[in-house]
């Protein structure tokens, strides 16, 4: 085993500090980074994103299917769905998205 071949890390991703070091009011990344980390796998662009597909079918083009392209989302609406879920989307716990991170995410999606 070479030194170069073994990677020891104390962080999961470069932009995220280990959550063990986080206070609950610490924001691990910008709103956009939080969106990329938690939301795009379902709500991003592409035919394999079930959230985008569901919103496309629901709104039939009246609003963009991708959340990131919406201009009508309020911060409170974003926070409500993240903490309560909707349809098959589950709520997200505070160990996943802290209140401070949710503020940043809500600001990001509501300032479009």
């Amino acid at each position, binding site marked *: 085993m070479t030194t170069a071949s073994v990677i020891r890390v104390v962080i*999961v991703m470069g932009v995220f500090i280990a959550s063990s070091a986080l206070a609950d009011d610490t924001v691990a990344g910008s709103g956009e980074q939080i969106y990329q980390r938690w939301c795009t796998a*379902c709500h991003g662009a*592409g035919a394999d994103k079930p959230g985008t597909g569901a919103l496309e079918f629901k709104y039939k083009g009246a609003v963009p299917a991708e959340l990131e392209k919406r201009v009508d989302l309020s911060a409170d609406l974003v926070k409500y769905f993240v903490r309560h879920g909707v*349809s098959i989307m589950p*709520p997200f716990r505070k160990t996943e998205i802290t209140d401070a991170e949710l503020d940043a995410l809500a600001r990001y999606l509501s300032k479009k």
Partner: protein
Amino acid sequence: MRAPPNVTTKVFNEALRSFEAAVGKSWVFTSEEDTALYKDAYSPFFGEPEERWVSAAVAPATVDEVRQVMRIANQHRIPIYPISTGRNLGYGGSAPVYSGSVVLDLKRMNRILEVNETNATCLVEPGVSYFDLYRYIREHKLKVWIDCPDPGWGSLIGNALDRGNGYTMAPYRDHFGSHCGMEVVLADGDLVRTGMGALPGAKTWQQSMYGFGPSVDGIFSQANSGVVTKMGFWLMAEPEAYLSGTVAVAKRDDLEPLLKTLCELVANNTMIATTRLGSPLQLGRMFGLPPEPEHAALLDKPGVTVAELEAYGRANDLAYWTIDLKFYGGVEVVEAQWAYSQRRFAAAIPSAKFTRHDLLRFPLTDDQAEQNFDKASLGIPSLQAFFVGARSPAHPHASRGHFWFSPIIPLSASAVFEAQAVFDAAFREWGVRPLYRTLPQLYQPRVFYLLFGFAISEDPAVNRKTRETIRKMIKLAAEHGWAEYRTAPAFMDDIMAVYSYNDHALLRLHERIKDALDPHGILSAGRYGIWPKHLRKQGQ
């Protein structure tokens, strides 16, 4: 705030104060708003008294904090329910089996401790998701692959402990089978490392599985005897290429030589990827997708014969059965495996047709990885699985969640025909139509899994009927020698009950282990049907 069952408010408050001292006040959740986040989002008891509730949640960040929490819980007899990422939706999510438990939320323990590219191994904590490890590997351009289950936000450790499956090659897609070494906090707070990890300073914890003496790792999977805080896994070295192809046959009875040949190719290691039996002729009925009107009418015609279906298939170029073959390795190797496989299938079924798909070379660019639709076969995590139940043309009304019944049947044509006949007849008799129904899937290499998905409703009467259906299916399957491998808390007792050889000797053994390792019965009571002594009658 409600105290757990059989715990006074005074004692619970003392325990909560001690938890706060151990992990920090901000990581102990007691408000109704916060504990509601731990409910099972896909609960089949939605809105009913039996819906599992959580008295509090505690989120440690280190192994030492986990040990402190367990000691405190033992001292005060507080029921504890550990979760990793809590995302095994359809199998209970973050909710405890025993209502009122304190959830031990390990999501903050999210360190990737080691990725060894040379040996293709890793060591991770429970909060690390498949997305996390995949992103890390991509960012560091490491030549290793993960094997992920359907939803990529699950925990490697949680999924392995639930004995989940993935979609690449056989040694890796058995997620528990591909683990190598554990670190476990026992119910009394003691700390154990298994395999080579029991050797202080061990250099091969993630390379050699067994160490010395009895192998005990299995008692921590689908069980409740410890809190796994670290786990090693064997990864797949990035192959040079991936090649897939489809074998299609026209007649119903071609299934026997088709599966016999598949068995041979699996057992001689020519084709050890996962695959699913397909049936374009039966597609409309099996997947709930709208087929062509003429095709749909034929499928719904009472008493439709095999000859009629085969004739429709011949006229419309629809195969009765298909199997996708997938190969990973050097370019020459995968081409040779595909050529050899075609030769074997053609010898068994001269009329078989073969379609070769594009050869992929690795590494993929970010765009190639993102745009590929068969991500799971390439070890790329996604959330594609949530198309099941999501609003779509096939399902105009989104469901509130889903759960699965997945009995394991033999990998043979006779078993497939028998299972189809048994469940078709039962569904007709019961007036039931599952949300999602597939033809058998080859997760483990020598058996088929049948997957039946059922929708969660906001109407308790609908959910009650679905629960009754599942319980009838469990018994019906058991009568035919088939059983589920994994389930949601609502059905754990029912399924454990059918594993009943010699007057439930296996469950009695589990209970003896449980009583020995967790004498106060505080850890994950009822998980997989294993109840601690003081709750045993209640659970059963």
